[in-house]
């Protein structure tokens, strides 16, 4: 997803220095922890099990449709698998796992995800990377795969298709993640009527179909994860970076977290503060700033100084190679100290921080 940003080295240097100030001055006037405003709705596609649309203020828009299909669970050992396992059990004398434990054996491959971004090939490495990142975050808590288990012989296969409608004006990760989160919250699967390992039979009343992530009752614990994109510029940490901010970022990190609702004690009247944020996945994103053109200091620029003082110029070129000059843009080199990454993660997981704000905002979306 190496988009060429059309910013000159001088503009990049200006942006970088204004973003490194404390507090940082962002081009669109947001504070460092402020998200761009967004509109969201769910249940827009009647032909799907669940769908959502999110539109960001900068005009980027994404649609997610969730489709579920029943599939026969393939035994990795083929038709002889059952016999083989019994043989192993009798031969090794070990229990080989409780019967109850194999019963709920769920596999991550039951969730399939595709991302479609206009202007990019669907087998583009960047698109595949985005899809894998989101998929990994959703599966990391193991809860989603368990929900797809029907019985020992059958499971649901969930297809999550993400469509970015607008051209990607910035790195679309937060947008796609929030849309996926909402679509999964709105997803319903038909109610199972059959019992045990029978061929599954479902209630054909759509009104009776339970939500994949129920909101009330005992099972209201887990929620799908969300992924936030955070960048570090100098000493400041910026959430939800725009394209220009990404172009000067020193490092970018995608942090996925998942909300765990603690069960409230019976009869306790405490206010709903039982939200616990749990880190489930992290990945470094290659910041596009590494591909930006470097600036030339005016002392080394022949056109600016007008003198062809060759030895002086060579000397300056050598120094320019080592020490970055103030106000002259140079693409970041090397990695990120772990202290910086750690402060990013701390900022994401902070109680009452950005993640809480985003989750509160998503909670307000009407699920139909």
């Amino acid at each position, binding site marked *: 997803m190496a988009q*060429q940003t059309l910013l000159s080295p001088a503009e990049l240097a200006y942006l970088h220095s204004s973003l490194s100030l404390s507090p940082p001055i962002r081009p669109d006037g947001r504070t460092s922890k402020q998200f761009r405003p967004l509109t969201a709705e769910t249940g827009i596609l009647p032909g799907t099990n669940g769908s959502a649309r999110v539109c960001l203020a900068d005009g980027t828009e994404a649609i997610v449709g969730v489709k579920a299909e029943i599939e026969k669970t393939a035994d*990795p*050992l*083929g038709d*002889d698998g059952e016999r*083989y396992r019994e*043989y*192993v059990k009798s*031969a*090794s004398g*070990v229990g*080989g796992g409780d019967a109850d434990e194999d019963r709920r*054996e769920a*596999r*991550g491959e039951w969730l399939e995800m595709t991302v479609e971004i206009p202007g990019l090939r669907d*087998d583009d*490495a*960047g698109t*595949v*990377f985005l*899809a*894998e990142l989101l998929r*990994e975050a959703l599966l*990391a*808590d*193991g809860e989603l795969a368990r929900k797809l288990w029907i019985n020992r012989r059958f499971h649901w296969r969930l297809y999550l298709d993400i469509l970015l409608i607008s051209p990607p004006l910035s790195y679309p990760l937060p947008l796609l993640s929030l849309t996926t989160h909402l679509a999964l919250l709105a997803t319903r699967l038909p109610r199972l009527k059959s019992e045990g390992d029978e061929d599954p039979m479902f209630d054909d009343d759509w009104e009776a179909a339970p939500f994949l992530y129920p909101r009330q009752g005992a099972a209201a614990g887990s929620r799908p994860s969300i992924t936030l994109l955070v960048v570090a510029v100098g000493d400041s940490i910026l959430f939800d970076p725009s394209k220009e901010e990404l172009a000067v970022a020193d490092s970018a*990190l995608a942090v996925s977290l998942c909300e765990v609702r603690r069960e409230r004690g019976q009869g306790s009247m405490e206010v709903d503060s039982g939200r*616990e944020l*749990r*880190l*489930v*996945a*992290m*990945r*470094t*994103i*290659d910041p596009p700033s*590494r*591909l930006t*053109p*470097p600036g030339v200091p005016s002392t080394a620029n022949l056109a600016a100084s007008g003198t062809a003082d060759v030895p002086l110029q060579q000397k300056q070129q050598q120094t320019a190679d080592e020490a970055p000059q103030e106000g002259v843009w140079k*693409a970041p*080199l*090397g*990695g*990120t*100290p*772990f202290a910086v*990454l*750690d402060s990013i*993660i701390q900022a994401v997981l902070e109680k009452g921080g950005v993640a809480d704000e985003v989750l509160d905002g998503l909670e307000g979306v009407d699920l139909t």
Partner: protein
Amino acid sequence: MADRRRINGPGGSTLPPVYDDTELDAVSLRQRAPDAIRPLYLKTGVTPSASGSAYLEIEPREGKHGSGMKLACTVHGPRSLPRSAPFSPYMVLSTHVKFAPFATKQRRGYLRDSSEKDLGTLLETALRGAMIADRWPKSGVDVVVTIIEGESTRQDAVERRVEEWDAMNVLGGCITVASAAIADAGIDCVDTVSGGVAALVADKDGGELSMVLDPVALEHESVLAACCVAYLPNRDEVTNLWFRGQLPSTGTHNYQTLVSKAVQASKGVHGLISASLSEVIENSQA
């Protein structure tokens, strides 16, 4: 999407054979100390036609005829970009990670699947930070890593479904072997980057949690969380961080310690890379 230009084997209806007569000790526990990495063999310059190449082998577990991991990497370039490519003030890095069709229990096709592309992108992130790309304008470098033999070739890996945790070990190996091959090609880097993996595992007896370096998922009852880093030891910087899993909310096991363990593993691997490279230099001088 099926590859229509080659005659491939059957499309997936076949099953790998199951042999009953192998020994059935499914429980094989980790013999190494928690902070020990497996022995490695690294050799650079194995492919004379490439500008840089390296081969990495990770030792199989003790007393097992099963496999460790075998990786080969070739680096082509820096060479000039094709005429049709747009101008770039930097070296254009492209990375390819490919499992050989026979590397895993389940046969892999010739086309790269999504996990291989994903590993390629992660490897690219890890390497790009280390290379001084502005010294090679208008040129391109291809880094091709082939996994000749993966870790999960054994039956029990398929049965216990631990392949998903192997991706981290594969990435760690890819980073190490690619870094050695880049050094062999003589491409300027700020430091030799090395990959390290650490995991939080639960063992059968009592469910005690512990953190181990260079984990092999098969040797543990379950893996709760794992982390792979690409680390520049001389600058103390991380070029790529990949973390996945769930850490208990209470207790001393947090992501900071997991990352520092992974960094410790990559420091161990870095020693191997520098030893291997200095051996090559000594041999060429003699």
